[in-house]
Structure formats: C-alpha cells, structure tokens
C-alpha cells in the first residue's frame, strides 16, 4: 500500500476545491440573474406573475436541494442527452440559489419605506422608473450583507453535487478516504477547507451588516 502523508491528502483536496469554488461562482452569479427575474415577478403588479414567483420560491425552499439535484440530473436525462454531472449540478444550484436570493431581495425591497413608492408615484413615475431610480438603489444598500451571507450557503450547497457524481471537494474527500483509510483526517481536512472558504465570507457579511446598522443609527 502506498503511504499518504497528511500533506499528500491536503494537496489532493485543495486541488479538488477549485471545482467547489468554480461551481459556487457559477451558481451564485447565475442564481443572481435568475433571482432578479423572480424578484421582479414577485413584486410585479400582475397577480399571475406574483403567484408564479411565490410558487417557485416555495417549491425550491420547501424541498431538499438533494432532490432538486436528482431531478435535474434525471430530468435533463429525459431530454435524451447524456447529462454531465456538472450541468445538472450547475442548473439545480442556479435555480435553487435564485429562489433564496429572490426572497432575500424581496425583503430588502419591502424594507424601503412605503412613502418612497408614493412620493415617486405622485411625481408621475411609472412602475419601472420607480424601481430603477428610487426603490432598487435603496434596497441594494441593505441587500449586500445578506447576499454575501447567502454565498456561504451556496458554497456549502455545492457539497451535495458529489452525490450525483460531480467531482469537487466532498467527492475528493470520499475518494481520498477510500484510498487512505483515514476518514478522520480526510473529512477533518475537508471540513477545514470548507471553513476556510466560508468563514471569511461570513465575517465579511457580518461586518457589512454592522456597518449598515451603525450608518442607520447615525442618521
């Protein structure tokens, strides 16, 4: 049997963590774009669009991400193509992130005082103009901390993609464990790498939020 030093293990894991990072970035960015569309539907004047957005959010927040990954994997398979794991992983994570981001951002839009809608309406602005020039710039300010905070959930969420066969950090952990028979060390290191990715983002989100609160009190 080949001897694996802790350093060998760590190197392999860090190597695989690239894919965790890449998948997280893609999911977060894609989720942001789709999430914005869901947000617009959620706060639109059309009842049908609002219903759709509510249903979408309820569906993705009310079911396990793992199930969504399975459905993406086998659902895309129904279309007749041979689905690579990264594609199923990416699409499921994008749709899942979109639901959470839309819901976070809706809260931020609703946090903007009602008087802002009324004042801009009384000046003759249309709905889109109100959103673009008055509401969203204000919502954006409060949206940054929880959005950064959600990126941590995305990174952790990518771990599940190992189950449908995408080789990222968690999958590498399983592979290396099977080769080394050192589950304690390997999963400990895997956890530490996730921690190293997530913790700075958590801290950053936290400090942003504190700054926002201080700024709020200052006025």
């Amino acid at each position, binding site marked *: 049997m080949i001897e694996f030093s802790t350093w060998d293990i760590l190197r392999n894991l860090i190597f695989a963590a690239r894919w965790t990072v890449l998948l997280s970035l893609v999911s977060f960015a894609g989720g942001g774009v789709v999430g914005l569309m869901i947000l617009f539907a959620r706060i639109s004047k059309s009842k049908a669009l609002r219903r759709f957005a509510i249903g979408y959010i309820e569906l993705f927040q009310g079911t396990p991400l793992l199930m969504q990954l399975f459905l993406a994997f086998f659902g895309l398979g129904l279309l007749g193509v041979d689905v690579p794991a990264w594609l199923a992983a990416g699409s499921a994570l994008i749709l899942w992130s979109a639901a959470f981001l839309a819901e976070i951002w809706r809260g931020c839009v609703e946090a903007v005082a009602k008087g802002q809608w009324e004042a801009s309406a*009384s000046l003759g602005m249309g709905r889109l103009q109100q959103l673009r020039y*008055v509401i969203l710039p204000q919502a954006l300010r409060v949206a940054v901390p929880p959005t950064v905070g959600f990126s941590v959930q995305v990174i952790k969420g990518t771990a599940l993609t190992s189950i449908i066969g995408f080789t990222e950090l968690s999958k590498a952990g399983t592979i290396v464990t099977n080769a080394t028979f050192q589950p304690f060390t390997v999963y400990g290191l895997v956890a530490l790498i996730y921690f190293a990715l997530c913790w700075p983002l958590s801290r950053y989100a936290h400090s942003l939020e504190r700054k926002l609160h201080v700024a709020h009190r200052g006025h």
Partner: protein
Amino acid sequence: MSLIAVTELKKRFGANEVLKGINLDIMPGEVIAIIGKSGSGKSTFLRCINGLETVDEGSILVAGAQLLPDEVHLKALRLKVGMIFQQFNLFPHLSAGRNVMLSQMVVKKTGKAQAEAMARRQLERVGLAHKFDAYPDELSGGQQQRVAIARALAMEPIALLCDEITSALDPELVAEVLAVVRELAAEGMTLMMVTHEMKFARDVCSRVVFMHEGRVHEVGPPEEVFSAPKTVELQRFLGHGHA
C-alpha cells in the same frame, strides 16, 4: 370652469366606507383648507385626487380630464397635480438637487442641464439654493419639507395637494414651511391642504372644508366657518361650547 371637480366620490377599505359621497369644486387659484378629526377621511380624499388610492364610485375631473386608474392617465394627472406628504418622503440616496431633478429627467425627459437649472430655481424659491448638494439626512425637517415642495414645483403642476405637511415638524420649524406655502398662495397656485394650523387657514385660505365621517360636513369662507360654525360637529371640533 373649476380646476378640480369631485362628484359623489366614494371609497371603501374592505367593509369600511371611508368616503361616503364627496362633492367639491375647486376654482383655479383657490386655496382650500381641509380640517376635521383624525380618521374622518381627509388623507384618503387627497390621495384619491392624486391617484394613490383607487376610487370605488363617483368621478374626479382635473382640468376637465377624467381620473382613470391606468398608468397613462395617472401619469397625465400627476403631471398636473403634485403632492406633499407629512413625512417628506425625500429620496434618501439622492442630494436635494438630485431629488428635484430626478422626476423631471425621468418623467418629462428634460435634459440634465435644463433640469438642473430648474432645480436651482425651485430650491431658490423655497430658500434652499445653498443646499443643492446636501443629502436629506443632513437637512432639518423643515428644510426637507421645503425640498419636497421644490421637488413637486419643478414638475410645474397646476395644483398642489398638501397632507399635514407641518405635522411631523418640530414647532420652531413650522413657520418656515408655512411661509413657503403662503408665498405659493400669493402667486396664485391652487392648493388643497389638510392642516391643523387654524390661524394659517384663516389667514391664507379662500375656503375651509370641514370633513366629518367621510363627508364634506360644512364648507365656506374661513370667516364664516371659524366664527359662525353652523353644525354641532364643527362647533365641537373647533372647541366652541366647551367653555
């Protein structure tokens, strides 16, 4: 011809009928004070005229045009009628000058230079030319409310609706805002203002409307309304017969 004509206006919130058939005609250049107890429907009435609330029954004509609840008609209405709110509602992310420029540029598609010139003129008019670059949270309540007035004036409305625009102000700041309104009245602007400033109403307004339980209960020139209230409700509201 009247500038604003309200006929049999009714408004309900669920089962609660808040406006029960309001009739009121306002001539160009008139300054109307609306008084009445809290909850009598004063705000709702003004908000209907600005299209912020949908109307259940009756009609509102502004300069001969019917108020209809679609975006095109609403926009046309709001270009004619400006509104000032109790809570100022300045846009906190924009400077005072930008607050006044924004809707000109976005709604009227006025060019930037022209919008800025207009903003400076209107801020000058309310005595705040020097605060062009200040942000709302750097201004006192009275100054914020004057910026809000300048913002509405920049749209060149033919009438202004004011809903208790001094009620959120510290007492020492009320006068500066009322002075601006007095000036506007003198220039011939048509004004409808909900107010608790009875002395101001007496001095400046051409007519006083007393609202009670969703109706115009009594209306007339200020001398009459204040000195010789006809109805018991108005007498009680004004504090007559208490002594």
